[in-house]
């Protein structure tokens, strides 16, 4: 299996250097989401579920077309629906695909104390390694987009992997492939920014959206998922997309003073255990826990 695109560049809770760092040229991958051509069909939701063989869960009708209020540990990709009335009285039905943004400076990774539970590959994908996860939930606090979710049974945190298994084999992520209108696009970050910029210009020049623009927030170093928005000055309209996301101060403070600890590899692990103990008590991680099916399952 080619792992050329899966070389690690950042590791959570890790002391010392990162294996493979600076050993070869890399490019970053990126998803482009053009909200102006998204029809909220949810093909990406299903493609994600099917590719990743995630178990089906209960949902309840909640006066919306939105499948559920927010992503779940076993539902990584969710279209957010918002009805918005413009000043001229006309209606907009805004739909935004919500999932892990694969930040260049991931708050989850910065917050994570467990050695190797969160990695960032040199292609930009931020991936959770549940085998190394200690279930502390700090990544949840660290994420400015409220994406990672914990399986309450196994105490492992999950989110979109950007289909590392597909990308590493040279395929596009499942959601991207499925998108009927092509509002989802996949390629290098440079290419996606170029495409997004052109589309935003087209919207400004030809479609009566003078505030159209690209969302690639600098507060998290830019993201591996960029949006084209009809109104880039108001990202909050799209299901609360934060205007200026950044890694929470608490995470920065916590990680800053602790950084010296990383020089001693053993201690990293101890901190992890300590945090785990604080949150969940003395219950040890069990082997079958690691192997457990995440509930449900298909026929």
């Amino acid at each position, binding site marked *: *299996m080619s792992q050329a695109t899966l070389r*690690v560049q950042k590791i959570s809770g890790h002391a010392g250097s990162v294996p493979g760092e600076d050993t070869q040229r890399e490019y970053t991958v990126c998803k482009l989401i053009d909200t102006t051509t998204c029809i909220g069909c949810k093909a990406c939701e299903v493609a994600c579920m*099917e590719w*990743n063989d995630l178990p089906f869960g209960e949902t309840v009708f909640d006066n919306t077309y939105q499948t559920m209020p927010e992503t779940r540990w076993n539902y990584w990709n969710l279209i957010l629906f918002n009805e918005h009335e413009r000043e001229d009285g006309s209606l907009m039905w805004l739909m935004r695909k919500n999932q892990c943004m694969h930040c260049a400076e991931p708050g989850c990774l910065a917050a994570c104390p467990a050695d*190797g539970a969160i990695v960032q590959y040199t292609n930009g994908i931020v991936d959770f390694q549940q*085998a190394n996860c200690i279930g502390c939930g700090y990544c949840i606090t660290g994420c400015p987009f409220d994406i990672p979710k914990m399986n309450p049974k196994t105490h492992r945190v999950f989110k979109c992997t950007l289909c*590392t298994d597909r990308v590493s084999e040279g395929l596009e992520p499942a959601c991207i*492939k499925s998108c009927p209108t092509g509002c989802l696009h996949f390629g290098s970050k440079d290419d996606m920014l170029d495409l997004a910029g052109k589309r935003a210009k087209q919207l400004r020049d030809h479609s009566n959206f003078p505030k159209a623009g690209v969302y690639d927030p600098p507060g998290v170093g830019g993201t591996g998922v960029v949006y084209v928005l009809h109104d880039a000055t108001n990202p909050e309209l799209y299901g609360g997309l934060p205007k200026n996301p950044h890694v929470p101060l608490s995470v920065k403070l916590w990680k800053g003073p602790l950084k010296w600890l990383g020089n001693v590899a053993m201690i990293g692990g101890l901190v992890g255990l300590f945090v785990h103990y604080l949150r969940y008590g003395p219950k040890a991680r069990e082997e079958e826990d690691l192997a457990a099916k*995440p509930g449900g399952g*298909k026929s």
Partner: protein
Amino acid sequence: MNPTRRDFLKLTTVGGAAAALFGFDLKPAYAQLRTLKIARANETRSTCPYCSVSCGVIIYTIGDRAKNVTPQVVHVEGDPDHPINRGTLCPKGASLEQDILNERRLLKPQVRRPGGTDWEDISWDDAIGEIAQKVKKTRDETFIEKDAAGHTVNRLESIAFTGGCTDTNEFNYLVVKTMRSLGVVYLENQARV
């Protein structure tokens, strides 16, 4: 790595026991081994059965069509070569695996007898024999050879055939051949409604 289908079978869960499978502890490895689940699965090109866009789909089954294997569907994905859908699928097409592997599928012929309050099992031979008898009886009792004006009409007005939206052309042609030959005029299809 050279993943095999067996790897896939065991790796159907996310964040599963990849480490144990390969006989070494991942930690402190930093990239979990997750193999491409369709790497060597069999590909069958088909057409989505839902709307009329006719998206090309690829049905992935395990087994290489060897005699000793019962194919099992493991994934359905859009066919990137298809000029219309170019690999894309809608939320219905993308969930076709659940249509094929569905535990609600009907698996055996059943009959509900007059006055019955439940289904009973019936063999195919018995079902077909009984249906043929009923068709003949109904037909012989009601067949119209001539109308009031004396025109030969050879028409059967007491049996209707309604065909569905995913009946193939060839099946539909056989319907026309068999039903028109019986004299059926109540021949209708989802195409109407």
